């Protein structure tokens, strides 16, 4: 590992790669971090967390009306029952899309996102373009992102300004009546649970 500036000869010494690597080396030398724990944490975020956790809740709601009712009424209790734990889900609310109502989630002040249900947020969700515009012109933003809503559909934007986190329950697409939980879970995308895409059969 790096032992000072010489190591970086020939590479841009202030590129994000070099700067991050040098910072990590410094922190290891100072005994502030443990490299193996950094690796383990990355592993967990990248492989154990992801939108499939939220997708399963959505698919199960489509199949089981009783489960859906419980999830809408008290998502925190359902997450506890399902043993879903982790970061950024201290209090979760489900917002249901239905004919005439479309929900979309943002965090205008930073990038709050239900990590334990959807994994890490994509860059576009964290971009200033999305954060600034989706509260002012959601219909236009959604259209640009490929989602044309009926002009009569009411749009409900949820700005994640407290520690409550929102998950959109998208509409079940037609033609999926024969599918089981596993197959339905596969259809549900991350972006449909943020509210910028619909689920396609």
């Amino acid at each position: 590992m790096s032992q000072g500036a010489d190591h970086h000869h020939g590479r841009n010494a202030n590129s994000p790669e070099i700067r991050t690597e040098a910072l990590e080396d410094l922190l290891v030398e100072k005994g502030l971090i443990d490299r193996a724990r950094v690796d383990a944490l990355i592993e967990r975020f990248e492989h154990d967390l992801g939108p499939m956790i939220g997708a399963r809740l959505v698919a199960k709601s489509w199949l089981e009306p009783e489960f859906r009712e419980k999830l809408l009424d008290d998502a925190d209790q359902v997450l506890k029952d399902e043993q879903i734990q982790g970061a950024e889900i201290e209090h979760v609310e489900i917002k249901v899309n239905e004919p005439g109502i479309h929900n979309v989630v943002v965090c205008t002040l930073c990038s709050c996102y239900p990590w334990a249900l959807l994994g890490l947020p994509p860059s576009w969700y964290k971009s200033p373009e999305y954060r600034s515009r989706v509260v002012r012109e959601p219909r236009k933003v959604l259209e640009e992102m490929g989602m044309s809503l009926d002009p009569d559909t009411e749009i409900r934007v949820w700005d994640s300004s407290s520690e409550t986190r929102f998950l959109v329950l998208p509409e079940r697409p037609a033609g999926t009546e024969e599918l089981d939980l596993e197959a339905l879970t596969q259809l549900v995308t991350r972006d449909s649970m943020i509210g910028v895409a619909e689920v396609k059969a």
Partner: protein
Amino acid sequence: MSTNHRVHDIGGTEGWGAVPYDPNEAVFHNDWERRVLGLLFQILPHTAKRPGEFRHTLERLASEDYFCADGYYGRWRAGMEVLLHEYGHVDRAELDNRLGVPQGTSAGYRSANVAAVNAETLPPDRITPTPEHRTVRRDLKEPPQFQIGDRVVAPGNDEAGHTRLPEYVRGVTGTVVKIHPAEVLPDSTAHNHGDRPQHVLCVAYQANDLWGEDAEQDVVINVDLYESYVELDEGAS
């Protein structure tokens, strides 16, 4: 119309282009982004431990570091450099010297200091049972001061400290549509003034009220506001 005075408080601001949308985007684009994530979670316990403190660190970054070319993880790394310097773990000059780049490259040279927030401007603290695990939620025995259906307005203030009141709703009347579980007040915890827990109101704003007559039709913007942010709009019907 709102005048944005904080680098991060960009809801409703104009002049931005298309959302850089890629439906198949991976969560990391480069390996260094992974490292930043992993490092941050080990650095926070040595630095910004209080709710809101890390967010406020990012809010204090210079605009060029907040909107830096290295994206979101670049912003996190800049925030880490600031915290490590402020908490005395890694001087802001140390990383620059090690890299052989001009001193002053670190974001720590450009970030604003933590503002001195006068505790008297905050709502009084209230005693709640100590939670069994780390959480921002608190069991408040006092009931919420507002009810669903109340018309409320958040006047805001021009204090330089941390707040979760977005500029774009300041002075605009909305309707309480839901009451969330009580939480510690980040405006207080970020500045080490105690929990001061508050009920949290979900307030619905009509797009026309926020953006004027040319706003898109049939749009409602819901914002979660700590109870102490708002007052009853007596004149509202």
